[in-house]
């Protein structure tokens, strides 16, 4: 009986529940245990979102994709085309077919997870418990997945693992090593002594580059976490005021876009080199000739 009363109290105190100072980040609350591993409230949200996405795409396309698309299939195709248009110039034509599944999944998954915090009930329905010193502690049943640091770290690790596989397959170890540590000076234009000195400098640059590559998962995860968690806190603290709701919608879209674009830039930096330069020069001359 007391649990039901607490539940009703929590639901009826929707607005006030966000007021206690939330600058410190609470750990995600474990809801139940599955095979000995804790299942937190944000994991439940991500399972629901993944299931909803799979079911939605399957329902939109029907049993088999047809050459003349139905309405649902045309919607999915326009989404795929939109993301492909966005990343193909960055990643390069050779890598685009292999990189597109990773980037498309990242974009749609992060987008829907960011927006899941805006659905009624996510993050607002939960258990309210009172500490001994009179502090209120509110534990929601479901929370957005990207508002949880575990979630964004997982996304960043998966994205960087996909990056590593893609550059290994499409650039190869030799090109990677040359890109990181290789001497990029032109041997014909530079005197021999300076050339060998530059080799040492480029080795040092390579080490700095390795450090910056190691920071990438950290920056990816923190950027996404900070934006979505901060937005969730803002909404809970200001009683879901309309301008902040719209801002959170926009920020969810922008952060998904930024995550996808950044991963594609990391892939394109190594994979998108000489093969596209000839095409770019050819295209550059065209508009001049047209005028």
């Amino acid at each position, binding site marked *: 009986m007391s649990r039901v009363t607490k539940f009703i109290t929590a639901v009826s105190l929707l607005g006030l529940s966000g007021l206690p100072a939330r600058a410190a*980040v609470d750990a995600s609350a474990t809801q139940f245990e599955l095979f000995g591993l804790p299942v937190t409230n944000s994991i439940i949200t991500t399972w629901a979102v993944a299931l909803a996405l799979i079911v939605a795409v399957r329902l939109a396309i029907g049993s088999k994709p047809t050459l003349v698309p139905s309405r649902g299939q045309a919607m999915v195709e326009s989404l795929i085309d939109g993301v492909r248009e966005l990343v193909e110039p960055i990643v390069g034509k050779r890598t685009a077919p292999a990189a597109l599944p990773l980037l498309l999944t990242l974009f749609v998954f992060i987008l829907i997870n960011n927006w899941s915090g805006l659905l009624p009930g996510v993050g607002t329905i939960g258990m309210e418990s009172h500490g001994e010193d009179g502090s209120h502690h509110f534990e929601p049943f479901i929370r957005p997945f990207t508002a949880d640091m575990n979630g964004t770290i997982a996304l960043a690790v998966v994205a960087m693992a996909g990056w590593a596989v893609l550059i290994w397959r499409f650039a190869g170890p030799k090109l990677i090593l040359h890109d990181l540590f290789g001497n990029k000076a032109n041997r014909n234009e530079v005197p021999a002594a300076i050339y060998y000195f530059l080799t040492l400098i480029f080795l040092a640059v390579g080490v700095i580059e390795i450090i910056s590559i190691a920071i990438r998962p950290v*920056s990816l995860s*923190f*950027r996404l*976490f*900070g*934006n979505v968690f*901060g937005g969730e806190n803002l909404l809970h603290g200001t009683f879901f005021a309309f301008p902040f709701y719209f801002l959170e919608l926009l920020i969810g879209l*922008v*952060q998904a*876009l*930024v995550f996808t*674009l*950044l991963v594609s830039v990391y892939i394109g930096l190594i994979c998108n080199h000489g093969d596209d330069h000839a095409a770019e020069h050819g295209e550059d001359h065209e508009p001049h000739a047209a005028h």
Partner: protein
Amino acid sequence: MSLVIAAVEGSLHIAVGAGAAAIGVGLIGTKAVEAVGRNPGASGKILVQSILGMALAEAVAFYVIFLA
């Protein structure tokens, strides 16, 4: 010098980090608006670039808030 005349309380490093991030975003916005004024037809491309730049500059504020 043991008499404390004034003290700065609170998170000074969060203030500096967030302030720098805000200035960075404002600079990107300035240049974006200027670029659209010079070439109004390119406003779509400029929008995409500037949003990307703003998100990257904003991220530093989140590092400071949650890492420090």
